[in-house]
């Protein structure tokens, strides 16, 4: 029996840490705040990846590892399916599409409430939250021997794309 907590615990925690870094610790320094949030995600991704792969044989190639992160790892973590994995072998760029519209928090939450925030702020708040999953992905992949850079593309909300650029 896997131990669980309410989703609202996780959401509240994330919302609050993003808010603390953006409005209190590094107010007016969004790049610094972003890096810290990403670093927190990285730590989580690193530790989770280590745990999940302890009993598995090493991955044969990058694609296998990415597929693992994309499927088992991701759905275990976020209970959502990644819809689409597009690879671009020439540029070593993988683009995932993750439909997060069913999730009341994180992504669509901020975007759906334009009355309280100006559109810019809403987009920024949404973007800040995403540094966390970007960090998780980067941390997990790095631990599997794939150094990379991960960014999120929210030009098509509520759909969210994570772009993974592998460092060669």
């Amino acid at each position, binding site marked *: 029996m*896997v*131990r*669980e*907590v*309410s*989703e*609202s*615990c*996780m959401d*509240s*925690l*994330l919302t*609050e*840490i993003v*808010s*603390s870094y953006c409005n*209190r*610790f590094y107010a007016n320094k969004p790049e610094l705040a972003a890096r*810290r949030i990403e*670093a*927190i*995600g990285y*730590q*989580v991704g690193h*530790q*989770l990846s280590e*745990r999940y792969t302890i009993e598995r044989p090493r991955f044969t190639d990058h694609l296998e590892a990415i597929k693992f992160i994309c499927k088992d790892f991701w759905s*275990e*973590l*976020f*209970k959502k399916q990644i819809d689409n994995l597009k690879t671009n072998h020439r540029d070593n760029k993988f683009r995932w599409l993750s439909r997060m519209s069913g999730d009341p928090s994180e992504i669509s939450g901020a975007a759906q409430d334009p009355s309280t925030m100006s559109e810019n702020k809403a987009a920024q708040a949404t973007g800040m939250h995403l540094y966390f999953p970007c960090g998780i992905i980067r941390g997990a992949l790095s631990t599997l021997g794939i150094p990379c850079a991960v960014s999120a593309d929210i030009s098509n909300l509520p759909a969210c794309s994570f772009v993974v650029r592998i460092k060669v």
Partner: protein
Amino acid sequence: MAPAVPRSGDAIFANVERVNAELFTLTYGAIVRQLLTDLEEVEEVNKQLDQMGYNIGIRLIDEFLAKSNVTRCVDFRETAEVIAKVGFKMFLGVTASVTNWDSEGTSCSLILEDNPLVDFVELPDTCQGLYYCNILSGVVRGALEMVSMKTEVTWVRDMLRGDDAFELQVKLLKQVPEEYPYKDDE
């Protein structure tokens, strides 16, 4: 229409969206670690964890009230029981127990023997003085403030410091009774 019956912590927890606790535990650990790096002073980290907890608590109370069907607690005793059995359960998936009541019924302890925040956590020696779970004290304080109870919440026992349980003392400082603009019989 019959009044809604308060729901049990188990029933609510079974019906909310839940996530893998490991993700939560690791995220909280990464947060504390990052705060220690960025804020450097253990006391400052304690303070910020409490503040974060407070900010979470003042919002979480809405979900609690909406899902638990708890209307008004008659007294602080009932409030404490509800926090321990329903509040903790519906969010953290664990129940707490309530003990150590003072004679006036305004101070008690919430005891947590099982705490998802600290699974697999060990504190290095460099963290002397850290209240790792301080976010919880803020959450309790914030939530209670939203239902007009001003409290002081402090740690009495901390398993990460070698104690055998987590014990939070909750002291009611002030209860502002709800004021209605009209008398009942008008």
